[in-house]
């Protein structure tokens, strides 16, 4: 299989990689770029554990080919904190114990950040609908909603 050379931007940094034509962006991130924050849950776009942004748009990286990232801008969980300072959403998830096993957490944080950029003051219902594509088998979701709302509140007053 002929490999493809791809130039892209990941979390603001110029990145180049070689991938197979049918290799997913998720596999590129995890196996070639060492960015293992995005997880593979289902591999079919149902669970949201692999959520990243592609040109600012929330997507499942398992449903994107690595080759499609050419000339694009990819945002992952690794780009959310500012150095050693956690993003307010990350801190809020810790404060509210909004995770247990943690597999779904990176995807939920990327998705929630994308929501708050679009809508800084969502209702609980809007948060639940936005995150409907992020499955969590541990928390029962309530703590996730509390954590997102608390972070939103802090970000609005910041």
């Amino acid at each position: 299989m002929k490999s493809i050379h791809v130039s892209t931007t990941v979390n603001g940094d110029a990145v180049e990689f070689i991938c197979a034509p049918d290799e997913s962006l998720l596999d590129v991130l995890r196996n070639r770029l060492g960015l293992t924050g995005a997880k593979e849950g289902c591999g079919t776009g149902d669970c949201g554990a692999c959520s990243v942004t592609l040109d600012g748009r929330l997507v499942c990286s398992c449903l994107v080919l690595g080759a499609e990232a050419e000339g694009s801008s990819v945002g992952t969980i690794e780009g959310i904190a500012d150095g050693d300072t956690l993003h307010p959403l990350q801190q809020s998830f810790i404060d509210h114990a909004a995770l247990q096993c943690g597999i779904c957490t990176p995807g939920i944080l990327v998705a929630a950040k994308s929501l708050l950029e679009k809508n800084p003051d969502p209702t609980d219902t809007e948060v639940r609908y936005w995150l409907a594509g992020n499955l969590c088998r541990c928390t029962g979701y309530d703590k996730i909603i509390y954590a997102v709302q608390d972070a939103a509140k802090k970000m609005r007053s910041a």
Partner: protein
Amino acid sequence: MGQSLQKGNNMRFARPETAHEAAGLIAQEIGLVRILSGGTDVMVQLKAGLVEPALIVDIKRIPGMRTITPEAGGFRIGAAVSGAELGEHAEVRALWPGVVEGAELIGSTQVQGRATMAGNLCNGSPAADAVPGLVAANAVARIMGPNGERDCPIADIPAGPGKTTLAKGEFLTSIFLPARPARSGDAYLRFIPRTEMDIAVAAAAVNLTLDAAGVIIAARVVLGAVAPTVRLVPAAADTIIGSKLDEAALAALSAACSAACSPIDDKRGTIEFRTQVAGVLAKRAALIAYSRAGEKK
């Protein structure tokens, strides 16, 4: 290191810059070709090994594929415009709210970031949420192929589960949503056993136009998930044309829709359930369309 979705195949990836270049690549290919737009169906099929294409053609770099352009009082929607992009377009939403609400029901926020109406159509699912609204709107697909470009009503594209009438080498470049008369409204409703992220068990789209007195003078009624294809039901439209959507007209609409159903029986809905619910949804969608057209009910 990196892994392929499928071991041992020789899939190639192409990213043409023009529709002609894409058509040429597809025409020259001896093996199976898959068009990649949003990828939310194709990537799943690749992963599951359902298709093993020799060539994937990503059409997103072709000019016009990702843009929404006003045209003749309506809008031309590029084949790679995502549900999220469509939903954020206030003018399209204002002109064709039923089309937009159908497209927005597909998948999660993540899937909306990529999934397209054109892909939903070409995937060929009888339960495709974007398609009934497009058929009701009398939308027209622009198709590129080895013999050049042609236009085709969306209604003539579905051919059965997973099948379309597109010829070998053809692909959609855009969907045209026409202008509509004043006092028109459309709506799409589906039944799913949960509140979000599911496949329609039954669905209905209604597009109608009223006269100054509130009498329906034109209508298109379309059912989803109750036949091998999305189904345009002229007999159902006839039951409400000439009415003000009174109880008798609504009952006749519901009965005509149920009579047009030939659904499958599966774990998500029985034949009897789908047949009844399709009629109920058509009635409710008609009421929403009627109020969007400017009349209280």
